[in-house]
């Protein structure tokens, strides 16, 4: 299942010398090379704490990845998966407040955006609004979006699309943009 993320190992040998040099600096440069009867210095203790915490972080990352994998495989396996992303077009000054997503008439997710999430969208971030299981065949997807337009007015937009789920994963993107008139927010739904 797992494949190498990037060819670190392959490069590792080639740059082993510099890697070792770096580690030498990080470790011995700060006194980790202790005589066996010496007590570690305060600085050494800091280095130990730092390294241990990095190890804990690494471990939590891996545990979380394993849980995510399990989650995907158990709850919405690849072939039965519907994933919906939300993106904001460049230069769009629309502020998104909330999005409601319905599939076949059932609300599957309602998301209220925090300030930092909305800011992140403006900076090019793309939000995974939903990931769930969807059987093959035709489905109705309804999206309701509320927010504040460039004119400072609250708005609500709704849009419905019919999609056909094939054998693979279905990925949809809700792209929010400022309309042609510069103020009216619009959104479009794309399938990828």
């Amino acid at each position, binding site marked *: 299942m797992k494949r190498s993320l990037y060819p670190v190992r392959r490069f590792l040998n080639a740059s082993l010398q510099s890697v070792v040099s770096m580690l030498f600096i990080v470790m011995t440069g700060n006194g980790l090379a202790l005589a066996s009867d010496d007590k570690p210095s305060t600085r050494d203790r800091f280095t130990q704490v*730092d390294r241990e915490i990095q190890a804990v972080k690494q471990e939590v990352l891996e545990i979380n990845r394993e849980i995510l994998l399990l989650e995907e495989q158990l709850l919405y396996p690849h072939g039965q998966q519907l994933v919906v992303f939300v993106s904001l077009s460049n230069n769009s000054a629309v502020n998104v407040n909330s999005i409601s997503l319905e599939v076949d008439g059932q609300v599957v997710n309602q998301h209220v955006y925090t300030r930092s999430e909305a800011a992140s969208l403006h900076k090019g971030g793309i939000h995974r609004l939903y990931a769930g299981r969807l059987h093959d065949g035709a489905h109705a997807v309804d999206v309701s979006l509320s927010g504040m337009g460039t004119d400072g007015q609250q708005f609500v937009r709704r849009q419905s699309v019919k999609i056909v789920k094939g054998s693979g994963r279905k990925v949809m993107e809700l792209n929010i943009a400022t309309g042609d008139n510069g103020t009216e927010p619009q959104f479009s739904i794309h399938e990828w």
Partner: protein
Amino acid sequence: MPDRLPEFARTIFRCSMLWVLMLLNPMALADPRENESGRLQELLYGEALFHFHQQDYFSAITRLQLADEQGMLPPSSTDTGILLARLKLAYGLDIDAAFDFHALLNENVPDTVRNRAWYELAKAFFHKGYSEAAEEALDHIRGEIPQDIRGDHQLLHATVLLALNRNRQAAQLLEQWKGAPELADYAHYNRGIALMRTGDYANAIKSLERVADLQSEEEALLALRDKANLSLAYVFAQSGSLEQAQARLEKVRLQGPITNRALQALGWVAHKQGRSEAALVPWMELRGRSPTDPTVLETLLVVPSVYRELDSLQVATRDYEAAVATFSDELRSLNDSLESVRRGSTVSLLLQKDAALGGSPGQASARPETRYFGRLLASRNFQETRQGYSHLQSMLQDIDKGLDNIDKLARAVQPGGDPDSRSTAIPPSMSAAQESSGGPAAGEGRGRARDKGHTGLPADPEWEVEWERREGQQAEHPSRGIPSLPEIELPEGSVLEGLPESGFAGLPEPEFTGLPGEPEPTALLQGPEDIGLPGSQIVWLPEAGRFQMPGNDPDYAYPDAVAFDASRARQADRRQRMRLISAPGVEAGFNPGAEPVGEALQELAAALGSATDRVARLSRAFDAESPGVDGLEGRIAALRERILRLRGRVNNAIALNEGYTQALALDELKHRRHQLEGLLEQANLELAKTYDQASDN
């Protein structure tokens, strides 16, 4: 946070460049699958960016790694690797990131991308105090440096050189400032310090004077101005320009991290000018301050020595007796504290979460066992340590919860398993997005916000100011110069004799460089003959006159958060950004290492809590109709094993954290005890001499 954005965005969208080009390629356009694939990859990168912009590096890394493992990103992409390494760096995994950079940053990587990565790594190392490693990373920087980090790279490099005591190189590096005007004060100040260390006082004065009169309401800059004035005073005093030294010292604020040092130095300048009675004014002011400050303790010995010069033997005797009593009391109290730290009880107190975040200011330091830890408690390093400790503790609880949830999941997947652990659908109200976000829900409420409340503040206003400075609260501290000192009347019948030149008569030692406090300051004294004062009365003049920064603060300065110089980006850079960045206004790099360890651990604890909650949801959502997953039971068992192992690691990290805190506390106390023992011995000696002198009279 905004200063971190462009950096990340640049790399991310550099990764997407290939796909952008591919999309522009008619052949690619002809194949909708290529188009779909390209956009999907952009969505996945964008998802990582979504988390990154909220400083949720954990989720950003997890999502990107997962996408890569599932084959949804270009295979063997160096760009992906660099991006991930930089995310790891932002998350605090600097050693891992260093390995990756060494493996990936070869000649095929454009200069600007490569140099930016090395710069970020250097900065992360520097923030952790790994100066040699930081310099090694900086040595990898060759060719064009991105314009927006050019200034900070220059400042960082110079600061690293200062930390390594390579002062001449540091001064040369800062001769022509290339960065943003906001950082110029730090550059001039550091150049002044570097020149001062090399003995080039004339040029040091020029550099320091550019900072010493700056106007600002920002606490960090006001503290920098104070340091510049103190350093200038030292340089002027070294050059014999005592009036200028006095003028500079009077510009140091009355409430600030180095106020006590400035008061002490002001007294010495006056003493050096032959105005001993005037010297008493700042020293008397200093003497009334908290005896937990070594500067104050030193003054307890200095004041009676002046009275003795003034032939006020009765007053001198009384003050020496008071000094002996104070030093004895302090030594006793210090030994109690030492014992308490060795037993571990004080360490627990120092690390208490409520002491750090809850109660009233000064609480921890006001307790007898912790009264010497004001500066330690206020230090950024210690704050991070204490926060980290608290988050590690909460992680333990999350781990236990996770183990419980794993057990439920294990029961659920077993044939005929616990029906209570099963349900058939995800409740519609549950946010699937958060379920799949790869980590804790992002947003203001998810615990990323820095804790603003603190207790454990030292009662001493100096520490409070220092604390606020560290916390970046930018509290207003009106700049009040030290007022002109009134002349005092001499005791009747006393004759003011001129003091002979002394090697230690108010001036810093020639070898003194303004460096942070040496480990054993009293050991630096040359001997009684070097500090002799008139009439063959040997007056022990302790550390006073050393215009040094208090505690272990370095004399050089590097801002906690560096504003990237986006405004100076060249047109070429801008053009490149246009291709690499999807959204405007995201033109800043991230600030590796600037994120305090405590906050990173807080994020980690939240992530772990989220992960264990996800396992609970898994067990609830799992049903018998779920598609079969090969080796599911084995994987769950392995997961349980990993979480168990993690528990051990977290326990180990907690123990190491306690050990480190104990070592910090012991260092502080031993340093103080050594100093106090010296002071007490000297006070007894001087008292005996005063008795002798009185009986002779």
